[in-house]
């Protein structure tokens, strides 16, 4: 599984691993949505430090996850974004709607 989740007191921590591309995005999205629906977190901390590669499918994953979090009244924090993935996200101007570190 390319996502490992732990939760405590309605705070969800999800770590992404491997390649976030079109091939893997569906499975990642499904897992994140299931975890959000189960925990109904106030905050989701999405740790991308283990991501080896990301393309524009990663943008969709982050935006859909943010929408899901907003729908349940929570917020999304994206951290540990490696340089290659950060370049993709910046090319899409994602930092304007979803800050990442």
């Amino acid at each position, binding site marked *: 599984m390319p996502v490992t989740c732990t939760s405590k007191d309605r705070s969800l921590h999800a770590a992404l691993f491997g390649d976030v*591309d*079109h091939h893997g995005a569906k499975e990642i999205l499904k897992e994140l949505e299931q975890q959000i629906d189960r925990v109904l977190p106030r905050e989701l901390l999405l740790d991308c430090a283990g991501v080896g590669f990301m*393309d524009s499918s990663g943008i969709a994953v982050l935006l859909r996850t943010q929408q899901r979090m907003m729908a349940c009244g929570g917020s999304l924090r994206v951290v540990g974004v490696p340089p*290659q993935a950060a*370049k993709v996200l910046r090319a*899409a101007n994602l930092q304007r709607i979803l800050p990442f570190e």
Partner: protein
Amino acid sequence: MSFLSRSANEGFARTAAACFAAQLDPTLDEIGDVKTAVSEAVTNAIVHAYPSALGKVTLRLRLFPDRTLEITVRDWGIGIPDIDKARAPLYTTGNEERSGMGFTIMESFMDSLRVRTKIGKGTTLVMRKRFSPRAGVTL
């Protein structure tokens, strides 16, 4: 090289392109750009060219003496009805895991991008990127 339009081949194609480009002794940033652009182009072929069946995709890589890498991704799929629309940011006909940013990213990571498409015949994408000079590397 030629492969079927299975999504598992996205990783295979971008890794092969990165291996080919390695002879230029590229920076990590440059290799990331190549992998990203190839991933977007091949994903477009897999998702949009062959929406209901598997088809053939080819990836051709060429190096020029001035350290320019040319990447050609070709399919024999349905073609792109409106290329200006397809290139516009956020436009997508794909599913929820697509962002509509593929062309924008290819354009910003490569020096040039040319698209030839014909309805019912297929699409060819030609991208070029010139790599930074490196001492001791001859082609």
